[in-house]
């Protein structure tokens, strides 16, 4: 089967093409996952290759050489050789010299096939660009050229998922290229949350509404966390939630409703929320943290939930200082950490780390964590490996939206433009910046290391997640991993995980 050589590593296309449509079961007994295919792989991160390239002749990519010819002809867009005079290092052996297989766009074939071929072309170009940017034989020039070609081929309003996806990835790579060239890759400022503020407020709200209706991600994260919180505070009269990134506050609407209607234990507890805010991070499209506070207060009043809201501003270095919080005796403290919902921006990992470790001193009853689920990448795979994984991740995301709303491509394009595109850029920027460093694969692991204990996902919680997914397209899956984590995935690709933890001293 096909093997591709990149810097001596073997991103194994076997891996991808060999995966059949996998997991049909969604959950497990108590502990392990039930991904039924490639059981030797601990993360069954298949992707959508199978779904849109069934007709590709993988044999064509075996062995071979002549990377240069291929790239040139890709860039030229035709079968003629020559043209651009680029000295391309021969270290990478990508494709067979039978690039005609790739380049030929047979008119007689159906749309599907040429679409697939186009999609593949884009993927290969992206990979080549990533490689050129960071590989052993870096070449900015080559990268630049490839990106130019990509921009010709892919537009953010393209008709296929792959095209739009490629457009955003191209932008991301371009930004990296520019940043690297100028020597000052302050990714933090370049890809700051403010990027989204320039978008119209109307756009962001519309996209947010659409995102919620078209996909289960937001609700999954919120409801899973909320259910765990409810169970943890079943007998408490006062609840204090410290929310790392409250955004528009919608998570708490359903928690309030649930608190109001709880039957066992003391009557509706008093809910207190402390929201952290960062200086200069205004999510202006959802309003400031204070606005969110006002909204929540009004909402709570309208439904009769005893409520108070506090706002804790973090310093510019975003270290979390627990003493800055106002605490009340006898309250159950919950730490809520939503990190990677689709409409969120990436936060600096120092900030998150400071928050999670600092909160340990508060001895929280429960810590809820929602983060994206990514495949751990081997060191050798480097940036390109992570790049490709990110590509798969977002490809699955795009597919999931399309599957549910095949006709509403403009609506989807809006969500992609407003939320997913900037996330792609942010994700790659982080990856680029931290390449070579020790990669932290997940915050969940980090919580374990720091000393938090896993808490159990209840049957009701798992049941709720499954029910929720039942409202959406049936490509979504929920898996229970370990005892404390639910993972939402699309087909065989895991996307978002929700996990719950307790501090060792708190009683549960």
């Amino acid at each position, binding site marked *: 089967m096909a093997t591709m050589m990149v810097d001596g590593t073997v991103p194994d296309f076997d891996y991808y093409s060999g995966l059949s449509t996998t997991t049909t079961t969604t959950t497990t007994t108590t502990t392990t996952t039930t991904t039924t295919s490639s059981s030797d792989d601990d993360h069954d991160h298949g992707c959508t290759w199978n779904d849109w390239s069934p007709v590709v002749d993988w044999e064509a990519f075996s062995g071979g050489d002549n990377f240069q010819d291929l790239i040139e002809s890709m860039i030229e867009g035709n079968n003629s050789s020559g043209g651009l005079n680029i000295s391309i290092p021969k270290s990478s052996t990508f494709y067979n010299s039978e690039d005609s297989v790739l380049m030929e766009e047979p008119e007689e074939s159906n749309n599907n096939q040429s679409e697939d071929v186009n999609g593949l072309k884009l993927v290969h170009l992206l990979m080549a660009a990533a490689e050129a940017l960071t590989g052993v034989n870096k070449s900015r020039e080559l990268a630049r050229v490839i990106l130019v070609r990509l921009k010709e081929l892919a537009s953010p309003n393209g008709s296929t998922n792959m095209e739009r996806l490629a457009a955003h990835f191209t932008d991301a790579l371009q930004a990296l290229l520019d940043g690297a060239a100028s020597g000052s890759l302050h990714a933090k400022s370049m890809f700051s949350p403010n990027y989204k503020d320039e978008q119209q407020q109307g756009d962001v709200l519309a996209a947010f509404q659409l995102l919620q209706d078209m996909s289960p991600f937001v609700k999954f994260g919120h409801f899973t966390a909320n259910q765990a919180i409810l169970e943890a505070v079943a007998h408490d009269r006062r609840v204090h939630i410290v929310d790392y990134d409250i955004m528009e506050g919608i998570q708490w609407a359903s928690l309030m*409703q649930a608190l109001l209607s709880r039957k066992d234990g003391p009557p509706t507890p008093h809910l207190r929320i402390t929201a952290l805010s960062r200086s200069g991070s205004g999510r202006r499209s959802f309003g400031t943290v204070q606005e969110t506070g006002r909204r929540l207060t009004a909402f709570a009043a309208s439904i009769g939930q005893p409520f108070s809201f506090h706002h804790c501003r973090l310093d510019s270095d975003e270290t979390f200082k627990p003493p800055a919080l106002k605490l009340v005796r006898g309250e159950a403290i919950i730490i809520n950490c939503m990190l990677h919902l689709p409409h969120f921006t990436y936060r600096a990992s120092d900030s998150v780390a400071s928050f999670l470790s600092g909160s340990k001193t508060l001895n929280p009853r429960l810590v809820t964590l929602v983060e994206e689920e990514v495949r751990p990448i081997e060191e050798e795979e480097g940036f390109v490996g992570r790049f490709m994984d990110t590509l798969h991740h977002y490809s699955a995301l795009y597919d999931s939206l399309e599957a*549910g709303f095949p006709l*509403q491509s403009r609506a989807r394009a809006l969500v992609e433009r407003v939320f997913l595109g900037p996330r792609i850029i942010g994700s790659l920027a982080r990856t680029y910046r931290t390449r070579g460093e020790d990669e932290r694969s997940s915050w969940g692991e980090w919580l374990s290391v720091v000393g938090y204990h896993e808490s159990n996902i209840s049957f*009701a919680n798992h049941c709720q997640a499954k029910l929720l997914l039942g409202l959406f397209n049936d490509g979504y899956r929920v898996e229970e991993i370990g005892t404390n984590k639910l993972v939402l995935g699309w087909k065989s690709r895991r996307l978002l995980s929700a996990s719950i933890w307790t501090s060792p001293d708190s009683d549960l």
Partner: protein
Amino acid sequence: MFHAKKPSTMNSHDRPMCVQGDSGLVLTTDPKPRLRWTVELHERFVDAVTQLGGPDKATPKTIMRVMGVKGLTLYHLKSHLQKFRLGKQPHKEFNDHSVKDGDRATSLELQRNSASSSGMIGRNMNEMQMEVQRRLHEQLEVQRHLQLRIEAQGKYMQTILEKACQTLGGEENMALPARTFKGLGNQGGGIIPDISAAFKEFGAPPLSFSSFQDLNICGGHEQQLELHPQSSMGERSSSFESFLVTDHNLSLGKKRPSPYSNGGNTNGKSPLMWSDDFRLQELGGATTNLISRPNQDDIIQMAPLSMERSCNPELDSVSDIYESKPMLDEKKFDAKLERPSPRRAPQLSSLSAQGGRNSVFG
């Protein structure tokens, strides 16, 4: 009721006299007082176990503490817990099994499977049946809560949108949707080109149908293709309902070959919503109807989202989604709130296109 095959704390074969102690426990009056695990007691037991993190994490001691029932001894709990643990596994597996191939679980199958797969042939059928009942009950509870929670999110979202609408200016925006919506029924001027196109694409029924038929197209076209051409309002409205069923893309693009979505909506059950995990609900023939169908009037008022039309022309066809699945949580569930339907009553829906609220999820 099945008779116990061997003596156990269930004690059903003795038919002894039972007294209820002042602690609320039901004890038998034979010389060796045995505890009768009533449904309520068992429910409490299971709640406690769940709270403690599952049968594997819970211990008789902790269960006793949590349950707080006087007269309940460790001995009672030990044996009951053991039975519970053994009985839980097969049930859980069964519940979680994907039913994409359209398996239907009858209670008998369930018990047979559990019995054989766990090797507990001699198992007390009574307990298992109770377990199944309990599971069902819990699932229904979760379902109900989920619905309420989604509503709450919707209401909150409404406050955000309203606020934004205000700041972005004005009443005319809100009025706009009403007009365009009605325009749908008249195929007014191709306001929603995507919908019209889809409409035509699938061999549109005559325009004399209600405007809601149009709505059906975008989401329901797959269903329509499978359905035979139907003229009865009842059937149409049921596919409309199943389409409306949630605020999510349930029907839109759902290509799942459910055994129910073949025009057999006449029993009023929405096949698409909740159906996967709730085949078990058909135990005992309960057709839990999970559709909440608001008044037609409610639908006219569109989400304030349509303000986007004037705010940003680019978003014209964004409203596609909302035209085709009118109103998100708010209206639908508000209507439901105003007129609470009987819950959990197995009920066939009344399929009249006008009025007639169907009972929601059990």
